[in-house]
């Protein structure tokens, strides 16, 4: 498993897998359970929307771990998962610390911290020193279409981060049906953390070569988002045409991920 005999690495990644998969399944299939556990979470469509969003992102991370289980450890995955898990430790801690003592729930924060430690240990023991060996070409491929898609991906993530800092409430304001609240804004902050982690791993891949693990991770996420978006449209719950930018991004991610996967999969 993971093409290593190091049991510590295997156990650490199994722990990470268990935590990510648990939150993926609960957030995606039963967000009401999370809402019941956290008195600070309002039980409304906005909270459910974000919990499902986080669940789908977790499914992507789980897919990346499964892929590495078969194909071996991948530096680019850790370049994504370690910053992201650290950001979410901060996200969980700062969120709970700001609440009244009787409303605080630390389970998720502790599990995020365990996940972060497990990933760091697996990265250091499994792949050794942090280095940034330059690939022969940018993105490690001569395929021009793949390069264009990857450049667009990194531009998209950076634009999202800039938009967040220009107007942190912008995502919620531009998405009909979402209600602004402290909790909703915190979830929107979390979306920016995902964009930061993707930017880091894309920059790493720009220098060191593309990662099939991250392409599979992105493919799983984008397929789930696209199927979910179609269901939103088909069910007629989208108000005022929805968030046009979000729709364009979901479609763009879906098409881009398919292009990357099918152009590169034969080499892996």
């Amino acid at each position, binding site marked *: 498993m993971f093409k290593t005999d190091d049991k510590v690495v295997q156990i650490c990644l199994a722990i990470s897998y268990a935590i990510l998969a648990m939150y993926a399944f609960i957030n995606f299939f039963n967000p009401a359970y999370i809402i019941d556990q956290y008195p600070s979470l309002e039980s409304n469509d906005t909270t459910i929307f974000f919990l499902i969003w986080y669940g789908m992102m977790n499914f992507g991370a789980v897919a990346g771990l499964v892929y590495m289980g078969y194909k071996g450890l991948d530096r680019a995955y850790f370049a994504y998962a370690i910053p992201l898990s650290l950001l979410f430790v901060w996200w969980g801690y700062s969120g709970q610390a700001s609440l009244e003592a009787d409303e605080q729930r630390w389970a998720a924060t502790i599990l995020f911290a365990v996940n972060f430690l497990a990933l760091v240990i697996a990265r250091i023991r499994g792949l050794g020193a942090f280095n940034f060996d330059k690939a022969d070409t940018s993105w490690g491929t001569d395929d021009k279409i793949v390069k264009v898609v990857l450049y667009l991906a990194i531009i998209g993530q950076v634009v999202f981060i800039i938009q967040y800092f220009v107007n942190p409430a912008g995502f919620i304001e531009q998405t009909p049906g979402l209600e602004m609240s402290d909790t909703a804004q915190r979830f929107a902050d979390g979306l920016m953390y995902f964009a930061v982690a993707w930017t880091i791993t894309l920059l790493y891949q720009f220098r060191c070569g593309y990662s099939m693990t991250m392409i599979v991770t992105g493919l799983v996420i984008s397929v789930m988002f696209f*199927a979910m978006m179609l269901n939103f449209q*088909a069910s007629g719950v989208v108000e005022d045409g929805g968030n046009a930018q979000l729709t364009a991004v979901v479609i763009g991610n879906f098409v881009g991920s398919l292009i990357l996967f099918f152009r590169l999969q034969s080499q892996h």
Partner: protein
Amino acid sequence: MIKLEDKVSVVIICVITFMAIFYSFMFLSDNFAAAFMERSGSPAPNETTLFWMGSWGFIYLSLAVGNIISLLVPASESRTYFRAMTFLAFVSFLRALGNAIIAEGDVFLPPLIASFIVAVAFSVVLSRTKSRAGAHFGWL
């Protein structure tokens, strides 16, 4: 990464897999499931109906995963799976057809069309991957 040798079959299975994911999400979410029932002209679902629709959602999701696994191995390792899926799709189509025939008033066509497409598509996969067992018409 994809080990299934026939490109047409890969495309077909990818499309069917996406359909399965789409339907699984539809059945797994109470809101989406209720909207689907409304579109199909059925009465609003109660809790029990939603529970069973959710169960179907998980079955669709499992079949989507099964399809993905069949892409990652040579056709020779998926023959029984392709045969089972073709039979399942054909039976589902017959049931959708029967429901359409006995329906009173307007017929909700998407499930009938979708099940027909999936049955034909899996039949094509069966032929192209040389997975058919015994005698058959040979033209599909």
